[in-house]
């Protein structure tokens, strides 16, 4: 993660900006507020922009958003916005999203540029991810072997490799890992 990262909220509304400041107060990232001319703005690639949809009112604004759709843009849906325009954004936030969801969405976009956090040799294979999913959802080795049609020894080898690659051995530790990596959803665990 780049220390130059920052979040800029593009909105005319003080309420919306202060709301974001409150939600993001535990996140160590500089957050500011601009009321700039989106139509002619050159978006910075280190900044995550949250753009109030009410500002997307004319074609030149939308054209510039489209041009910058490779940047980290999130749409804040305060008004109706058509699906095609929404596609220019990496994600969207609605007024009914709770703090947790909003943080997760922002986090996901900030982390997308962090793929090189893991070296190639430590990326779990598809099979290992399958095994991990079953392990953290409480299946025993024997059950996993039956479900995946492999021998128990193979399951054990996979588990060993998973722990070696991730550096995490315990079931609870692996569960947190799987949630952080979006391999399982937090709702699937008690």
């Amino acid at each position, binding site marked *: 993660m780049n220390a130059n990262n920052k979040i800029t909220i593009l909105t005319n509304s003080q309420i919306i900006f202060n709301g974001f400041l409150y*939600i993001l107060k*535990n996140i*160590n990232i500089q957050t500011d507020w601009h009321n700039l001319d989106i139509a002619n703005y050159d978006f910075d690639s280190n900044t995550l922009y949250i753009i109030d949809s009410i500002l997307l009112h004319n074609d030149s604004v939308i054209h510039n958003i489209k041009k910058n759709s490779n940047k980290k843009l999130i749409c804040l849906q305060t008004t109706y916005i058509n699906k095609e325009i929404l596609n220019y954004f990496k994600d969207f936030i609605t007024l009914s999203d709770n703090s947790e969801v909003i943080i997760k969405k922002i986090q996901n976009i900030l982390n997308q540029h962090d793929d090189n956090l893991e070296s190639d040799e430590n990326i779990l294979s598809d099979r290992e991810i399958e095994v991990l999913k079953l392990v953290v959802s409480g299946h025993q080795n024997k059950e996993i072997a039956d479900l995946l049609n492999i021998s128990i020894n193979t399951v054990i080898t996979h588990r060993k490799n998973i722990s070696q690659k991730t550096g995490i051995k315990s079931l*609870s530790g692996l569960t947190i*890992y799987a949630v952080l990596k979006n391999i399982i959803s937090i709702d699937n665990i008690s």
Partner: protein
Amino acid sequence: MISLSTKVADIINIYPFIINQLEYFEIYLPIGDYTIKNLAERENINPEFLIFLFEYSVYDKISTDYIPQIKDLNFILTYLKNNHKYYSANMFPHIDKLLQKANYELNSDLKLVIKFFKEYYSEVIEHFDYENNIVFPYINFLLEKSENYNLSSNIHYSMEEYKNHHDDINEKLLDLKNLLIKYLPFTFDSVLRKKLLFNLYQLEKDLAIHSYIEDKILIPIVEMLENECK
């Protein structure tokens, strides 16, 4: 190098966490110009044991000069009991407070970490309870019996059983460290992350010494005692 003539204050100057180790023996600062030899005499502790303890703490080096012996059991038990007390009354509540302080309603990742830490915490406490309630009383009984051979009791226990029960309590601690170092996303409060890590390092080091004393010193000594009482 640490020797009999090394001043304890000099060791504390390079590695202040030694203060914890001293407190497990109920030795508190100020320490003046005490050397290891003087301090060991004053406190009735085998000086070689102190050298072992300090070298392990400061340099991660295990001195081979210390030879476990039955007469050391008293101060070793004091050390271990106080060590247990320190974790349950001090270290764990401190880390717990750090976690609680974070405004975690907002962060589901942090909630998972707290849950994980609590699991780990209760595992360690269970391990301590077992030693406090079963192992230490058994050792006390052996000590009494070695004085009074006719003493009988219905305690059916042995170090063999302890060895089997003595499983690895370190695994979850290492996992927790790796989650903090490698995986918890950037958005996780960085001040909290750092504080937690520093505390976990301290805990890990302390527990490593603790386990070494139990496995390589306490168990052999008690086995000698068992043989004497046979």
